[in-house]
């Protein structure tokens, strides 16, 4: 499941690379699509070369690649999140819902710690936090999909106070946050994979 999930995440990011870059040009420095795609393509290559034997193993390998290949803000953020998720998943071969939710909680906490960011600052946290909270409150995968999309779109009206968009002050309002959009792919693909496998 984890391999399928990250594979689809990578594919979606690749497909939307230009879109992410355009969003980052509006409020940042225009490299978010490039950064994410560089790392995730490497994740794909690695998964083919040395398939990990547990979901935790898959995620851990992806974390290492994010840290060492992505760079920028998104590299350490996704990297730290995935690293914590991997730790929480351990090396069990099957992961059940609760454990996954718990792992994602560790992930979002890692992002908030590393990025010193809270909800409402127009960053990827604004997708991660509502998504994880929904799962914690027992939302279905179907419901998660809607919540993630809404959370993503909510960043439009926010004023950025963290990340590069913060330099724009009020001019950051009216744009989607690129990291929130890539994070929405992360959760949407997860929901997809989980629904299909359930």
């Amino acid at each position: 499941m984890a391999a399928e999930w990250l594979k689809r995440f990578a594919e979606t990011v690749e497909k939307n690379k230009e879109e992410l870059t355009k969003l980052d040009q509006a409020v940042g420095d225009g490299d978010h699509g490039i950064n994410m795609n560089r790392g995730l393509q490497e994740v794909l290559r690695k998964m083919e070369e040395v398939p990990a034997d547990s979901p935790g193993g898959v995620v851990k390998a992806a974390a290492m690649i994010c840290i060492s290949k992505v760079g920028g803000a998104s590299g350490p953020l996704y990297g730290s999140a995935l690293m914590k998720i991997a730790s929480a998943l351990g090396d069990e071969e099957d992961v059940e819902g609760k454990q996954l939710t718990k792992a994602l909680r560790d992930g979002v906490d890692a992002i908030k710690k590393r990025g010193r960011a809270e909800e409402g600052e127009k960053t990827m946290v604004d997708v991660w936090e509502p998504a994880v909270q929904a799962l914690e409150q027992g939302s279905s995968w179907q419901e998660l999909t809607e919540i993630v999309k809404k959370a993503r779109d909510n960043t439009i009206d926010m004023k950025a106070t963290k990340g590069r968009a913060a330099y724009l002050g009020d001019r950051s309002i009216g744009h989607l946050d690129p990291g929130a959009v890539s994070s929405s792919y992360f959760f949407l693909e997860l929901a997809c994979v989980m629904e299909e496998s359930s």
Partner: protein
Amino acid sequence: MKKLLNNVDQVVEDMLNGMAAAHSTYLRRLQNTTVLVRKQSPVNGKVGIVSGGGSGHEPAHGGFVGKGMLDAAVAGEVFTSPTPDQVFEAIKAVDGGKGVLLVIKNYTGDVMNFEMAAEMAEAEGINVQQVVVNDDVAVEDSSFTSGRRGIAGTVFVHKIAGAAAESGADLDEVKETAEKVIHHVKSMGMSLSPCIVPAAGTPGFELAENEMEIGTGIHGEPGVERTSILSSKETARLLFDKVQDDLHLQKGDRAAVLINGLGSTPLMEQYVFTSDVKEILDEHGIETADVIVGEWMTSLEMAGISLTLLKLTPDLEEKLFAEADTPAMKRFAK
């Protein structure tokens, strides 16, 4: 996009090879990394100074590796912070036993990646300290946000902390010196045209023929205000006023001035601007101990300029004028 290169995905790799080829008397590339270190690294008994960041700001930072400035520069992809493993390699290569100072420009990505590298180095018992440069007064200074960006003022940090390290100061002293520079240095820039990240292929923003952007960052980040084109004099006054609002230079103060072309602004225009800045400083009775003009912290082929003022104290001035011999900045001992 019209660029002289071979492959957009290889541009940093190719560039680092070119820098190593051109400046082989100064520096070498650590194999399989994006790190340039001083030819003879580590320098024993000297605090090592490591800086770096996304590429596209050349000569920063590789051009400042050498005597009296940096021990290593870590290059990320274009406009993208380097990753922790690369920074860690740099730290290991330059630690001469007296510890290592990281000079970080204040961007979330840079801060996080360098911090992770510092954690890795500390785990290996290397003494690492860091300073974060945030000289860009275009951005509001607020403790609720990630704060101000680091831009061209970083060059003064390299120069002056580098002189401190070269003179044998210990890690705390070098860090203190760097922090003093950071405290006394303020910058602001503007641009007339955007730049194109090679892998993106399209400009980061667009400006009409009669527009300029005030307060642009060095990564093509949009600025804080868009106006119709101002003259050099008007631009100088606008940037000076913003910098001065923060720096409060007094009549009789001594200052160092750094005029930084962002990429495609010709030296001709930079010197016109220099003349206007000098006039304003003279008006205010500020003594210009040093005026540095050229390209130091660029933004690919962006047209534009930034103004950096450093308020000098006698100790900073002494270190500013200390000998330096690097590819991009050389200074004879006075």
